[in-house]
């Protein structure tokens, strides 16, 4: 019955399928996504992923098209704050059909816990992702207790 719609590029079915995908991305796969009071709604710029190992915490900030030198990264009492701005230059005489890309100032905060050594933080920018590595203090790492 829907066969006649299959050729339509922007058919209702495709929109529905995309909606379904977005819902799936929203509900996710069991990872905690509900954040604290400083968290942003899904789809905000820039997106963040956080990964941890026994030694460090890695924060990935999906921030394409920024000048990393103008990024302001700070840690205070276990709260990592990243603030910056993305400006999108416009060309003369351009008329826009779509403007979906974020432009303006942004700020994101990640609560890290209190075992992060604020003196040992590394950040690099590559292909539009800021990767911030925060090391845990040695004393805070879990220790193996030997039983004699």
């Amino acid at each position, binding site marked *: 019955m829907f066969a006649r719609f*299959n*050729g*339509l*590029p*922007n*058919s209702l079915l*495709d*929109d529905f*399928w*995309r909606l379904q*995908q*977005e819902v*799936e*991305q929203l509900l*996710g*796969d069991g*990872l*905690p*996504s509900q*954040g604290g009071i400083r968290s942003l709604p*899904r*789809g*905000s710029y*820039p*997106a*963040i*992923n*956080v*990964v*941890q*190992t*026994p030694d*460090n*915490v*890695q924060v*990935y900030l*999906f*921030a*394409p*098209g*920024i000048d990393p030198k103008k990024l302001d990264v700070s840690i205070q009492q276990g709260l990592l704050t990243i603030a910056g701005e993305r400006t*999108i230059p*416009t*060309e*003369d*005489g*351009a*008329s*826009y*059909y*779509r*403007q*979906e*890309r*974020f432009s303006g100032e942004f700020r994101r905060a*990640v609560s890290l816990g209190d075992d992060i050594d604020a003196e040992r933080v590394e950040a690099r*920018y590559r*292909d*539009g*992702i800021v990767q911030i590595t925060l090391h845990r203090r040695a004393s805070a790492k879990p220790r193996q207790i030997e039983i004699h």
Partner: protein
Amino acid sequence: MTTNSSQVRTSSGMASSGVASGAAANAREHSAQESANAGAPQRGRSAEAVLRTPVDIFETSESLVLMADMPGVAKERLDVRVDGDTLVLEGKVHFQLPEESEAVYADVRSTAYRSSFVLSRELDTDKIQANLKDGVLTVRIPKHAALRPRKIEVR
């Protein structure tokens, strides 16, 4: 770190099925999964979800320009091609996660970007230029010189 038009593969333009020649929309998106496209991800839960690429599309007197956010995609993992009358953008995020890592929080839960746009006839797909810098893809599609809008003088 910029790539130039070498990235663009243009597969010979077969006659379009008359879908895309409207003057109003120069590039319309039709989300991915056309059954005809070989290698396209399958509909359904088994396939990895495709990440949304926010795009800006604007037109100047010479060309149509599309800019897409694709953070994490290096130029080796980017594919920009014209398939018939459709511009297809595909990219894979390259993630080097440390050993023994555990995800704590994730806005981004997929590593694949894909979107496609139906082009219209006045665009010269043989002269597309693509440039990738800091996760932003810029695709510039010139208009055929003969088909650029002319100002008609009224006497």
